[in-house]
């Protein structure tokens, strides 16, 4: 019987090795798989490349992973925000690399990575410094840059509910990068608030079909990043 449940976050991330490329879902705290990230801090792999829209807040979640010196490179669209100090400090000191990607291009690169598309053309960033060094080409009298699909060894994603097949639904704008990141990694690890029996999620409303998911960890009461930041918490 297919059953993708894994007992705990620690065992779900245990095989992530030094040098791995990891996609981490979320837009700000919405959809950020904070328990999986903390398990990754505990596990301790280093020299990671992380693909995520932001770089975390305060000293918890993704910011904690960065502060812990485990990340050598970030691929993201918006590496600063109100409570983001860790990444800017390390980046200014030259201790972490940054590949800045427009948000829509980042999303499309991830989707293409999951769909077997090695490269595509987009009008985004044409005529800007973010197109420098990239191939450009005209189609139908407009200019486009070529962008490459993006894949990862692992994706860490937060969803709302799952069944044992790994079918997922999300909540509100916490959906953001989850569905596309699930498709673009060799191993997709998802934390959900609730596990339900097969069929409890209407086949019409499944957002991520189970084929894209490898491991499901149930975290019934996930921590809220903004609350931890407000309380000045740090991890570990």
């Amino acid at each position, binding site marked *: 019987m297919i059953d993708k449940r894994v007992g705990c976050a620690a065992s779900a991330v245990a095989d992530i090795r030094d040098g791995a490329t990891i996609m981490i879902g979320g*837009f*700000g*705290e*919405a*959809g950020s798989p904070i328990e999986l990230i903390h398990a990754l801090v505990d596990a301790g792999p280093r020299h990671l490349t992380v693909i995520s*829209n932001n770089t975390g807040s305060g000293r918890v979640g993704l910011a904690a992973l960065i502060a812990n010196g485990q990340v050598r490179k970030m691929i993201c*669209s*918006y*590496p*600063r*925000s*109100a409570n983001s100090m860790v*990444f*800017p400090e390390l*980046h*200014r000191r030259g201790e972490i690399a*940054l590949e*800045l*990607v*427009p*948000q*829509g*291009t*980042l*999303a*499309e690169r*991830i*989707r293409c990575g999951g769909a077997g598309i090695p490269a595509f053309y*987009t*009008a*985004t*960033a*044409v*005529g*800007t*410094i*973010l197109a420098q060094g990239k191939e450009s080409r005209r189609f139908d009298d407009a200019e486009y840059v070529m962008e490459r699909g993006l894949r990862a060894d692992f994706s860490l994603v937060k969803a709302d509910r799952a069944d044992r097949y790994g079918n997922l639904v*999300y*909540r*509100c*704008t*916490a*959906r*953001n*990068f*989850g*569905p*596309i990141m699930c498709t673009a990694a060799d191993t997709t690890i998802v934390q959900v608030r609730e596990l339900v029996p097969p069929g409890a999620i209407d086949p019409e409303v499944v*957002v991520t079909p189970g084929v894209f998911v490898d491991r499901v960890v149930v975290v019934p009461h996930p921590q*809220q990043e*903004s609350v931890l930041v407000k309380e000045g918490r740090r991890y570990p």
Partner: protein
Amino acid sequence: MNGWTREEMARRLAADIPDGAYVNLGIGMPELVVQFVPRDREFVFQTENGLLGMGPAPPAGSEDPELINAGKKAVSAIPGAAYFHHADSFTMIRGGHIDVCVLGAMQVSARGDLANWSTGEADAIPAVGGAMDLVAGVKRILVITEHTTKSGEPKIVTECTYPLTGRGVVDAIYTNLAVLDVTSKGLCVRELAPGVTHEEVQAKTGAPLLTPTPENAR
């Protein structure tokens, strides 16, 4: 005081958005536009983090950290809203399905070049978000900005000195002093704020301004 307040700028801009428009609002001053939808019109607000049919901020205490806008502020969803993932969201934006995007600006050039994402300084942490996608994909780009910087330098210039968000992408500029159209001939003053003269606007602008004549309209 001469000129428009921030709220008046937002109201003036909103008056130019047609009924039924799909609208994306940038972070900061553009967010004010949501308060000034003309009474006889309906706009549908899209936020690029995955919501079409964004409604106003919820009452204090009932915010949902999983229901936010692109500025990571709590919002609500109207009846008839839809959630979607980022690739679908940018299909809307990059595929030309959003009618109007309202953005702030650090600089706008007479040709409609926009700089609004980076000072280009060596130790700045650049953060682009969806700005380059929006200017490349949305049908009409409206800039809302104070006419000059806090120190009085022109933000509307012949050539942007900051790194560009996009080339030739801006359609119109709404400032505290005037409404300017970006035309093939250059910047054209469509409207002056109360008590503001063309000469005053020109003095605070780093590029030549045209007055509206039939042949200056693009």
